[in-house]
Every structure is written in C-alpha cells, then in structure tokens.
C-alpha cells in the first residue's frame, strides 16, 4: 500500500484512541471538581493537563485552572492540538484521504461521530450534560474500534491501524502514571492517607481500571498493586505490558504479511527485552520514574522507526 495511506491509517486510529483518552481524563477531572473541597483536589486538574501533555498549551491560553476553562480547552479549543475537537477532525481528514483503504463501517462510524461533534455547540455542554457527552465520545471511539476489528481485512492496513492505537494507549497510561508516580512509591504505602487514596483512585479511573482492580487483587487500593496493575499486568487492557504485547504481535503479523523484516522490528524486540523482562520489584529498585521515562522515549522511538521503515510521508 502507499506509504501515505499507511501513515493515515496509523494516525487516524491513534487520534481516535487519543480522543477517548482525553474524554477519560476529563471525566476524572470532572469527578475531582465535584469534591473540590478535599485537600489536594485542586492540583488534580493541573496533573490531568500534564498527563494529557497539554499543560504548557493550556497555560498560554488561560490564567486560571478552573474546571470550566479546562473542560472547554480539552473539548473544543482549536488551539489545543489534542482537544477532542481537533483529534476527531484530524482523524476524519485522515480518513477522507484513505477512503480506499478503510471499510465503509469504519468510515461511517468516524464520519457520524465527527458530524455530530461538529454540530455540538460548546455552550450546550453544561456541567450536567458533560458526563453523558463524555460517555458518548468513549462509546464512539469503541464503535470505531469495533468496526476496525470486525470489518477490516487482516492486512497491512489493519496492522498500521493497530500500531497507532496501541502506541497511543501505552503512552497515555505511562503519562498518567508518571505525573503521579511519587504517590505510588513504596514509602507512601506507609502514609496511606485519604489524600493518597484519592490520588490512587484518580490514577485507576483515568485508566478505566478502578473496577477491574478489585477483580484482580481482591484487596483495598495499594500503591504497589496499582503500579503493577498498570505496568505489568498482561490481562489489563491499558497496561504498558498489554499495549506492548499488541504492538509486538502486530509487528509479527506485518512481517508475515510482507514476508520480510525491517529495522523497526529490531527496535521493537529490543524494547521488549529491555523493559518487559523485569519484575515490579526490579522496576521500583531502578526507579519508577526512570522506568516510565524510558518507556515513553522507547515507545516514541518505535513509532518513528515504524514511520521510517514503512515510508510514511
């Protein structure tokens, strides 16, 4: 397929995943704002912006980190490259450019979502309507993914869409963990204050993991478990390890489809070797923050290597 089409599929899938993550982060921010009286809740919005990697962009647009400013910025601001508006618009623009490389169901899902979103006036999304609106965004992203999974040929295009999806998801989970890594360090286990529990809950929610956590650990929130759950648990669909597994197996499919390996496959294997052969204890010993930074850097490098190997342009 054309390198440009591969790039478009990679990015449109990545942007749909990003839109979903933005909605999830904003949902957490919304919950925090409802309990704003609680100590420490105030800077949650700030960390949320940081986790979304839009904190500097936000600071240049707004002085006050109020919930309504943040919500507008994340949902509709065209100056925010990762606003849901921009993600959906860009995803659809990419989709228009690859109409020949995606299925009718994928296109309809994306197109309907964008048309509906573009029609939504920011003023109509009041605090009361926000949860339902965010729920709709998540549902739309799931519908798109469902269309990809159930209608797309298992060919190279499918692989590029999967790669974009999981590179974005892994990065997002790593960022959420990284802005709050200090509350997960072993010493804070000793503290275990209300504030900590609140912070832990936020991390889990931001990864849609607050319910599944209990199914896996049958225990109260503990920093060590939370970190393990989101980093190494292979059954957790937003954990770093899960995302890496998808990427790695997709890379294998791609090799099989094309009948040859490219430089990015070595990059991918090396990443698995270096990061996912450690235990959680090893990771804490070497430094949680260091591990997460390394993951983010490697994930980005892999993304570039794929673009390079497959002539994205």
């Amino acid at each position, binding site marked *: 397929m054309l390198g440009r089409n591969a790039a478009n599929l990679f990015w449109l899938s990545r942007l749909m995943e990003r839109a979903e993550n933005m909605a999830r982060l904003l949902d957490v921010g919304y919950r925090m704002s409802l309990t704003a009286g609680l100590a420490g809740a105030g800077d949650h919005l700030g960390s949320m912006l940081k986790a979304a990697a839009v904190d500097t962009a936000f600071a240049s647009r707004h002085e006050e980190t109020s919930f309504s400013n943040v919500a507008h910025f994340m949902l509709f601001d065209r100056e925010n490259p990762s606003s849901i508006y921009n993600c959906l618009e860009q995803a659809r623009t990419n989709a228009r450019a690859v*109409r020949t490389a995606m299925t009718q169901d994928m296109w309809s899902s994306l197109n309907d979502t964008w048309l509906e979103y573009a029609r939504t006036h920011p003023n109509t999304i009041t605090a009361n309507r926000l949860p339902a609106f965010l729920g709709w965004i998540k549902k739309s992203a799931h519908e798109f993914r469902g269309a990809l999974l159930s209608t797309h040929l298992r060919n190279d295009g499918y692989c590029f869409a999967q790669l974009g999806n999981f590179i974005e998801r892994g990065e997002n989970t790593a960022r959420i963990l990284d802005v709050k890594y200090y509350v997960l360090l072993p010493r804070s286990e000793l503290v275990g204050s209300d504030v900590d529990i609140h912070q832990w809950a936020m991390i889990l929610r931001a990864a849609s993991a607050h319910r599944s956590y209990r199914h896996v650990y049958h225990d109260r929130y503990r920093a060590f478990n939370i970190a393990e759950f989101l980093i190494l648990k292979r059954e957790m669909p937003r954990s770093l390890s899960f995302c890496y597994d998808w990427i790695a197996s997709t890379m294998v499919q791609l090799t099989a489809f094309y009948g040859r390996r490219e430089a990015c496959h070595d990059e991918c294997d090396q990443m698995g070797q270096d990061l996912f052969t450690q235990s959680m204890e090893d990771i804490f010993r070497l430094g949680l923050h260091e591990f997460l930074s390394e993951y983010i850097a490697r994930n980005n490098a892999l993304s570039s290597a794929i673009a390079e190997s497959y002539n994205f342009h």
Partner: protein
Amino acid sequence: MGDNGYFDEMTEADGSVRQPYQIVSQWLNSQPSRSLKELARDAEIIFRRLGITFAVYGDQDADERLIPFDVIPRIISGDEWRRLERGIIQRVRALSAFLNDIYNRQEIVRAGRLPKRLVVNNNAYCPQMMGFTPPRGIYSHIIGIDIVRTGPDQFFVLEDNVRTPSGVSYMLENREAMLHLAPDLFAQLRVRPVEDYPEQLRQTLQSVAPPNLDGAPKIAVLTPGIHNSAYFEHSFLADQMGVELCEGQDLYVDDGCAYMRTTLGAERVDVIYRRVGDDHLDPLTFIPDSLLGVPGIFDAYRAGNVTIVNAPGTGIADDKAVYNYVPEFIEFYLGERPLLSNVPTYDCANEDECAYVLEHLEELVVKEVHGAGGYGMMVGPTSTKKERGEFAKRIKARPSNYIVQPTLSLSTCPTFVKSGIAPRHVDLRPFVLMGEQIRITPGGLTRVALKQGSLVVNSSQGGGTKDTWVLED
C-alpha cells in the same frame, strides 16, 4: 409542450402523460407528499453518510456541501436512448480522430476546414504532444457529452467534455440511493443497470497500458487531494476499481519510469488516470511551481513507459470556440452526416455576428470561451440591464473570448421542491469510455436547475441531480 411553453418530459400540454413516464406518474400520484418529503430526507442521510460532497469555489464554509438530490427519477425510453447513443458514439469517434490529426499531420487545418488560429493560439493546445501517438492512438478515454433537449425529438449537444469530466460517481451513487428509496418502482420498470461502470473503466485503462508489460498493468488514480471539489469521486472510483488513489507526492519518476511510494518501497505504475489538470501535471513541462503533479511524468509518458489518461492537450477538442466545428469534424473524418446537432453558436470574433449579438443580448446566452461550471456566463432573458451593459463592454474588448448562443428552451422534468412536485429544467451528461472498444453507460448524470425558471443546472449555481433511468424496451 407543457403548459409553461417548455417541453415537459412527463406531461403533455393537454395533461396526458407521455408513455415512458406512465408508471412513474402513477407512483407519484400514489405517494402522499409527506412520503416524498421522507424520501428526500432519507436520501440526504444516505449521501451525507457516504461522504459525497461537492466543494463550491468561492464559498469557504461550503467545503463539504452536498449536491441536492431529487428523488424523482428522469426516464428515457429505449428508443430515445438508442438514438442518443448512436449520435454520441459518432461524435466521440470524430473528436478522437480530430485529436489524432491535430497532434500529428493537422490535415484539417491544411484542408482549410478549421482556422489555424483556433489551434495555435489556443491555451488548450499542447505543442508538447506534437508527433507523439499514445497507445491505440486514443487521447481522450473518458468523455462526458452534455446534452439538452427542447422537444420530443430535439436533442442538442451543448458541450463536449474530453479533459477530465466529472460526475460519474453521482450517477452511480444516485442509482444506489434510488435502489434503497424506491424498490417498488424498480420492480415495475426494467431499468438498464449502470453499476458496471467502474469495471468498464478499469478495463478501459488496462487496455491502453504500455504494450509488452509482464503481468497485469498497475493502475493509479491521481488526485489533487482532499480539498479538490471532486475528491469524493476520485476516491470513489479508485475504491470501486480496487486501485491506488495517489497524490502527486506519492508518485515519482526515476530513469524514465513512474513509481509509487509504498510501504515496501518503489512500485512501478503503468497507467495513471489523472484528475489533475494539464497545467499541473508535470512541473518540469507545464506550470513550474505546481505541487500537485509529478516531476518528469510527461517525459516518462512520451517515452511510452506510462500511459496518462486522458492525454494532455485533449482540451483542444472541447474548447468552446472549436465546438462550432465538431459537425465539420464528423463530415471530414467520418464522411457522415451528424446525428446530433450542435446548438447554433455565434462567434463574436466575426464582425457581423458580433454586431447581431450586441443587438440581441437580451435573448442570448453568453459564455466565456474558457469558463466552466456556470461561472462567467450570462443568461439574457433573466439578466439585468446592468449585467448586459457589463457583458457588452467585455465582448467589445475581447470578442474572441466569448461565444454566444440562443437561449434554449430546455426540457423540464417533474421535480420535488418545497412547493411540491413542479417542472424544473434539466440537462444530461452521458459518460463514454474509449479503449479497445467504445462503451457508453445507459443513462448518465441528469442535472436539474432547482430554482423556478432557472436554466443554469450547474451544481455551483444551485443545481441538483437526478437518477437517470434508461428503460429496456
């Protein structure tokens, strides 16, 4: 004649229904107007979801405006169609012979049957094509002939489109939509299918690939990109044919051959169905700063390593000033009498004709020679005094820049508008493919002027489309 003085394709002046429309008329009578309204709404939803859009130049917010679709089909009887078909095939054969001649020996000019100035001073003439004959000697493979009707047996060719005619995706999607919207009507009428078109287009493109290829030729559609008004059509056709849709940046020329940039590196391309204009095709040969084309592609073409469809320079055959001579081409190249008439056309470069034109502007239609899409034209009977003054000035300043025709009484078809079912003026663009054989899709694109009384059917001027049904009888 309908009661408004125009020929209506469904209803005679005495109120009786013309034969081809019997069943449609019954169908319309049995529909409560509410249900037509619902059909119209359903149609809009179908088109919006398909992503069919048409950008209108000069209107920034309308980047993705839908062309209005009318749910009442236009009916053409088998007999009417057979007549049209013969006339159209004759015409494209003559146009093809003309192109072959004009880029080789120019016999028609030598014979004094076509003024030389219309060729050499013409912007659409492409001197770089001289002495080069494309595969099978075919220059224009994809053609649209615009036809208007003024009476039961009066058909005229309004315009030939031999460069990169668009609209075929609307023909196909309109049919798709009608199959959803009015299955009961299809059950009662035998409508000739159009959905073969993409496959025929693919075969046509294959048949003009450079000779002596190993294996099946690799085909690509070249689009200027998603901001082009016809982008939907480009992507639709590529998709329906199962070939790559490329932008200029996806293609390059190396050592005289054309390649596309794929995930696995370079892949050879044999036939390019290009939807970028001549001027933008190759910055090394045409406009140097254009980014839409492929540097070096023209040389690769002339070396016979890739076929460009349609060939550069075909515009010389559909130029509005050359149009007047097409009946002449039919006689000169084919030795036949034209089966379809031209619309009588005044040439303002001729002093007598120009004087007549200036006297009678109120009755005439003025078109810029190089204009298209309904821009730069004036319809006399609906013009204001100020507009006529304006056009008179322009004609006097540059007479050869304008052609002038009588205002034709275009036929009307029943159309569903706000006030209900009403007659609206229509034209017809049938599509022709020319490869190892000439194929013409039964039907084509009917454009309809939705404004009451309007004779301008262009979508950029508020026109809509209808599905066109050729009956098997």
